[in-house]
């Protein structure tokens, strides 16, 4: 919330990459043009994901509330 949110949604991008990989597997006869486009998108996603992977810090937020009944 307070931390600057990275614009890349890791889960979504990863899922998209998985979909592309699935697409490459599912098509019996791939369209070369589409294949090239998909491949490029995959590269783009992978580089975004890897950049996100290089983030090393996690933020620990102490909840100020006291937990009692």
């Amino acid at each position, binding site marked *: *919330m307070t*931390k600057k949110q*990275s614009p890349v949604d*890791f*889960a979504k991008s*990863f899922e998209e*990459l*998985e979909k*592309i*990989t699935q697409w*490459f*597997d599912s098509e019996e006869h*791939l369209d*070369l043009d589409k*294949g*090239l486009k*998909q*491949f490029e998108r*995959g*590269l783009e996603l*992978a580089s975004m*994901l*890897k950049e*996100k*992977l*290089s*983030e*090393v*810090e*996690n*933020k*620990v*937020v*102490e*909840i100020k*509330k*006291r*937990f*009692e*009944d």
Partner: protein
Amino acid sequence: MEPVVLHVADYLALLNEVLHDRVPSNEILIEGEVSDYRVAQQKWVSFDLKDEKAEAVLKCFATVWQIGTPIEDGMRVHVKGFPKMYERFGTLKLNVQSIEPIGEGALKRAYDLLKKKLEVEGLFDVSRKRTLPRFPKKIGLITSRDAAAYGDFLRIVNNRWGGIEIDHAHVHVQGREAVPEILGAFRHFNALPLEERPDAIVLTRGGGGLEDLHAFNDEQVARAVYQSIIPVVVAVGHERDESLADYVADIRASTPSNAAERVVPSRADVKYEIDMMLTHNEQRLQFVMDEYRTAAEKIATRVGHILERERERLVMINARLHDRAERWLPLLRESVESSARMLRQVDPTRILARGYAIVRIGGEVVKDASLLAIGREVAIQLGAGAVDAEVLRVNGKGKQKLV
């Protein structure tokens, strides 16, 4: 002093008043062994609290709601309550406020009984266990900041993954405050609006005996884990330790470190996976391109073959033609020469040379004299040279001879 006469009811009321005023019930825990434990109409609980040594018996009475933990005959317990004379039965009973098993043996039995009860109710059902999102953005951590578990969990999370938020709810993990605080933390996380809610709650602490783990074996805590709308990971102590919260949790981790491994993926694994996907895509694409290339090559080869075959056919035809011509030409020459000889024999010039003449009118050869008209011009071809003449007479008729 005159004795006071009291009715039984009034006397018992007096006793009760004294018992209430003079016995510091709130400050006394009565220790004993449970026997003859009964539940009537699923509401009323009665049992005897015994002292093995002194052969003393205290009758106890409670409602099921006052008994937090399952109780069984033979358990050693601590009971807190008010003594009361029950008018109708003429007996003194302890009106129980709370009861707690003591000693490992009693705790273990209480644990087993509660475990059985929750199991029958379906709190441990595997079918209701939820999976965690693979890439969480926020994790709710319920533990004590003084516990080793806290440090272990954070260290492993930091080793494996980055860029997430961990909301820590500091609670006691044992002692009197533990249960209400843990319940409060669960309420806090579950009450957050959807966009602020963590993707998973991790409830963890180090290992310990049954007495240390009581909060994790508490029925209310087990139910809070069960009712949480956020998936829950519970991790207690070392591999061998188990708690009821463990069984209810969506994911049961063996240690605080293991809990960290279960909630966040490892950078190295994910990076490897991304690389594998890229390699795979590249191979597939390469495969497709190879397919196209092979197809193109095949077509080229086939066209080449056709051309080659056609060329060979041409060469063959040419050769055959040549061959044929070789055989035919002399014959042809022979036939031409014999024709020429024949033609030479019928050559009109040779006949003319012998003194014959050809008469023509307008290029047409004249064969019948009667067809000629007097005065007509005719062309006469001789063996050598030609003359033009006029027809004077035809078959003796025509112009008179001048001579």
